[in-house]
């Protein structure tokens, strides 16, 4: 299968196979006007298979979302068909408006306009806790 390379834009590479649609949703890529290609199960020497997302525009990417979903993702910035920058993401300390608390007793459930905040409370186990009620969320 052949997907054209992009001239100016962003390539999200080394996504764990099967995670690309979650990233597409969390980053709100459906709202973009430019071309977006999702490649699932691409062959990878490192990972066996991987997903890739190509975005034909230089948009602001929420790196925290990427780090939360998959800290192994790389972000390639393409200008005039050349790779000009490669960014590595990491597990973010704080997630804002990414997750919704599942605790029915949490104030963010009864007042949904409140800004959702989750804090990384266990890096090793990749556990985030709601800043309001401390409900734990395992990634």
């Amino acid at each position, binding site marked *: 299968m052949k997907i054209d390379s992009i001239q100016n834009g962003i390539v999200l590479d080394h996504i764990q196979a099967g995670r690309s649609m979650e990233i597409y949703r969390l980053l709100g890529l459906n709202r973009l006007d430019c071309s977006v290609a999702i490649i699932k199960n691409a062959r990878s020497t490192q990972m066996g298979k991987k997903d890739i997302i190509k975005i034909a525009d230089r948009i602001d990417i929420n790196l925290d979302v990427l780090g939360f979903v998959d800290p192994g993702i790389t972000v390639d910035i393409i200008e005039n068909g050349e790779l000009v920058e490669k960014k590595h993401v990491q597990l973010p300390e704080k997630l804002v408006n990414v997750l919704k608390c599942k605790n029915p007793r949490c104030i963010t459930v009864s007042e949904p306009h*409140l800004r959702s905040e989750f804090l990384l409370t266990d890096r090793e186990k990749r556990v985030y806790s709601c800043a309001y009620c401390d409900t734990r969320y395992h990634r």
Partner: protein
Amino acid sequence: MRNLLNITDLTTGEIDELITVAEDIIANPEKYQDVCRRKKLATLFFEPSTRTRLSFEAAMLDLGGNVLGFSEASSSSTSKGETVGDTIRVVCGYADIIAMRHPKEGAPYAAAQVATKPIINAGDGGHNHPTQTLTDLLTIHRERGSFENFTIGFCGDLKFGRTVHSLVSALARYTGIHFVFISPEELKLPRYIIDNTLDKQHLSYEETNSLEEAMPRLDMLYMTRVQRERFFNEADYIRLKDTYILDPEKLEAAKPDLCILHPLPRVNEISVEVDNDPRARYFAQAENGKFIRMALIMKLLGLKA
């Protein structure tokens, strides 16, 4: 500006400082009677409470300040659909410091995001109740003289009991304490407290379902109520509510200097016959709540005697 939303907002040094001030207030109350003159405390109780609200109000009055507020959500604009944030923004224009209780977990955190005056969490659902923890710590300190080298038993609802969770995390900062957790299987201490506090800090603890078996080893016994309001299923509440009842017979096996605590209100878990036993310290504990809240109000307002 400082808030107190969770007991972990305070360092060990700050807790020690609050206890020192509270003990000085007990010894020299007249020294503190005008510290908060012309200051106002708003007590915003979106959920009913007796002890906590009255002890906050008594604390502010004993500091020479004034109080205003409401004691249930139905007498506030919450009943008209007002958000916590809007209520807090308005009250910040009227008061110098706010103590709030709310049935929703995290409501004080939401309040603190918009507040321009210090917020004290006076209980948010089953989540945190840091001034109860400060009350418990002051009581333990007054009874034992220190926070080191004793065995403390927690008995009853250890799953939903926020006072237990907060006190365990506060005591975990000190050394030489052995914890005994006494509960039915369904109301055991949550796994995350065992993982993140007890095991992580290599603390000494055991879990049992027998109060009688644990009793002879205890220096402190912290009894708790099985709280009807925390159960979604009434049948589970009825089945578990009378699992442990402390009575004079059970106390026969206890140490002569055991100290019995309870955050109150009690229902059946401590027989009224125990009240006259000198080891019963729960009413003294409730009184200590006023003194530690006086110390806390002063600290958050940046005032000294």
